């Protein structure tokens, strides 16, 4: 390949990158997970795993279909511990658009859900919090029930929201 051809190839690669990168950024949550200690009392206790839509079944089996139908692009997940006791898993679903996040949040609600002020809309139960912000749908679930569990989950949820 001569120098002229090489220059052409490099220019083409640069153009593709300029066009493609903003598109990727639009749907990538980056790192939505607060580091250990960034939210008081919460320690990150597991690696972050990221699933593309086509592989989401590996994580949530039959639940994957409703996310795919709503336009999930990727799902990132990790775990935390609060003061060494309360364990929680955080899922951040990056949808194609805000409508997809709204669909999932609304479909998953039951009558005992309590509305909470976070992101564009959010709901909380005794052991879980879910909210949406733009194309992101976040679900935080605790494995145990503790007296201050819901307050701690909300603090973690706000920590995640700040990263989106």
């Amino acid at each position, binding site marked *: 390949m001569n120098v002229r051809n090489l220059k052409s190839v490099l220019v083409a690669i640069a153009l593709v990158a300029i066009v493609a990168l903003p598109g990727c950024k639009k749907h990538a949550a980056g790192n939505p997970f607060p580091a250990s200690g960034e939210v008081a009392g919460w320690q990150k206790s597991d690696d972050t795993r990221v699933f593309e839509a086509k592989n989401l079944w590996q994580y949530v089996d*039959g639940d994957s279909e409703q996310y795919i139908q709503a336009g999930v692009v990727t799902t990132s997940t990790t775990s935390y511990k609060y003061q060494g006791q309360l364990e929680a898993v955080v899922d951040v679903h990056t949808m194609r658009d805000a409508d997809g996040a709204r669909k999932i949040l609304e479909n998953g609600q*039951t009558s005992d859900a309590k509305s909470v002020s976070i992101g564009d809309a959010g709901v909380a139960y005794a052991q879980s919090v879910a909210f949406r912000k733009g194309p992101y749908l976040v679900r935080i679930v605790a494995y145990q029930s503790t007296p201050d569990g819901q307050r701690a989950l909300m603090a973690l949820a706000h920590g995640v929201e700040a990263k989106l």
Partner: protein
Amino acid sequence: MTSRREFLKEAATGAVVLSAQARLGLAAAVNHPAESGKSRVVVARDPALHDSTGQLDDKRVLALLDRAIASYTGRDHSVEAWKQILRGVGPDKVIGLKTNGLGGKGISTHAALVLAITERLQQAGVKPGNIVIWDRNARDLVACGLTINTDPSRVRCFGSDVSGFEDNQESYGSARIRLSKILTRECAMVIGVPILKDHEMAGVTFAMKNMYGVVDRPQDLHAGGCNPCVADLNCIPVVRDKVRFTIGDAMTSVYDGGPSFHPERLWQPNALIVGEDRVAIDHTAWQMIERKRAEVGIKTLEAAGRPPRYIATAADATHNLGTNDPQKIHLLEV
């Protein structure tokens, strides 16, 4: 409270003595003659299985297992009962316990039940290394509270991520899959140890749906509410022949929003569902979920658009995996 380690040590030496209540339960449980021509399904319950903090009592789990197996076999001596469960399997053959840890830590087969089964298998003469606890991968097994081990001198516990899958594709009807080598090469007999869950697509996941965890690409089997794929998969000869018994974990369950963990829809049936007829077991489990859904005032699975149609398919003349006809199920609730 006895720690899990202490409990297992006691159980391994046969020192776990059933409480008076459990012994009375056993006596009552075995006093149920089998109705000929019917599929026997045992639902054994213990309302005190969870303590006030929601923790499982390991000793009560073992007692509940004993009651379920005694009732199913009609034998109150656990070694004899287990030998009956294992009949036809040679002494040096491998017994697999297929768990389900896909839902994560909050809604997976409980380790207390799995370990109780392994103790009773050993007391019935199965060598520790001839017991394999398995699932899709290490993460699923750890979610159950189990520890990975491939040392053949002890009970083994590892996933298909270690064993790999067969190169050759098996097929039956709509199911075209590659099977885990743990099923095809290791195990002479498999006891399914699923956990009862509502399922967003299939309606219910329990005995037959648990077999999705033995194939390489389960995502290919979810179309049409997993019907007829669940039935087809269970008709593949090695699945039909080797998976001969189910000890279903209905100690904790999700009645809606499954198969993922939804603590707000969690409930504790505190039950084991036991038997050989996988269709009758799934039918019984489905009814249990429907009763709970009615109790909390939500739609039936039919009204929600996801009845577990694969159960009827599995019972049809083509598949003939068992019966979903209540008149042909001898249901024992103990």
